């Protein structure tokens, strides 16, 4: 988990990412996995997950109208 004072709100969206995951034995089908986070720069540039959240990143996201609703302060007891 990140050391940030912030975390994602419960309604943070989930994105389905596809890719060639390791140990894939499927044929012509990319493995897909659901990832909770924010596609800050569009899905082509990846999804920011909570473990990558730092205070400066969270504080920058709080300045952006489209993302600020997803950033909340951690409460006591949160990891």
């Amino acid at each position: 988990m990140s050391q940030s004072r912030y975390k994602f709100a419960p309604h943070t969206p989930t994105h389905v990412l596809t890719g060639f995951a390791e140990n894939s034995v499927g044929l012509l089908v990319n493995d897909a996995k659901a990832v909770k986070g924010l596609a800050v720069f569009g899905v082509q540039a990846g999804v920011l997950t909570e473990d990558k959240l730092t205070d400066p990143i969270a504080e920058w996201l709080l300045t952006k109208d489209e993302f600020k609703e997803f950033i909340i302060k951690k409460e006591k007891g949160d990891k």
Partner: protein
Amino acid sequence: MAISATIVDIRGKAYEPIYEELLFENKTVGENLVAFEDDVKANTIVTSASVTVNMQAYTSGAPTSSGTLTTADVAITPVKVMYYQEFDPNTLRASRFNRTMKAGAWNTASSEFEKVVLGLYGRKISYDAEAKWWNNALAATQTAVAALTPGAGQAAVGAAEQTYVAAVTAGQFDGLVTRMIYNNGALGTRIKVAGTTITASNIKTEYDKVYAAIPALVLANKDEPCRIYAPYSHIQFINQFNNVATNYKDVFVVTGLGTPNQKVTFYGLEVVFVPLPENCIIAAIPSHLLWATDLISDINYMEMNKIANNRDDMFVKHVFTIFAHVSNQAMNVLYLG
């Protein structure tokens, strides 16, 4: 190990076209949008040179040396990557693809499957390589950038830059945007422009910020004009901007809209659309952005064969090398917001 296929056993006819997944073309390679350096096996030295000169008073005695002659070597070794999947063509024996299988129980290879599905697979790999050349980061680079203290000045990583590197799905090499932000173990010396969320309403204002940040020297270079690299979504914003009656139409000039010859310029600089992140713009002379590889056509080379002589299931494999390098870093503008 099986093909993931939803099959209807073929009884009557099959509609001839197969609806393929829509893909962007690999325009970066197809249209030479950046510089390509091939025949790079390993440890190729790329050098940037700069000098300073100092006019001084003449003396007939011993002169004093003044000025600098600087070269910076960077050793480049493209990263070797691979795509590999196995499949069992027998899975398709009851499907539409059996119409192109030769008679005989031995024969399960379908030319239609190879042409359409595997052809699509090859193109997707080409596009994936392009997307990753622009957007990618090593896990180690992500850790290094996360450890930097963000700030507003040129000498600090921007909060947007730090967020971008953190968000990128970790891959096999650092993509171009990541290399502009961080390379050779240090913060990149790109010209940093703090951005915002770009819409059709503010796109001209934001492009103005990029334009203003381009060194005049770069704009004056007639040998190789500076180019603006933008994400695909910007063509929509630009057209919407131009469709507002009160907006000047000679800022973003769009010709051949919707045709293969479509060209977009901003204050006379060509705007090209590539798989950049949203709210990201790069302004640079194309030769400053280097795609290093062993052989460019490797990206289109697919090997397909039986996994072993005593087996009928097959594999499809791509192998190529790829690397992103930025030269003359201090002359390139990176807008991120």
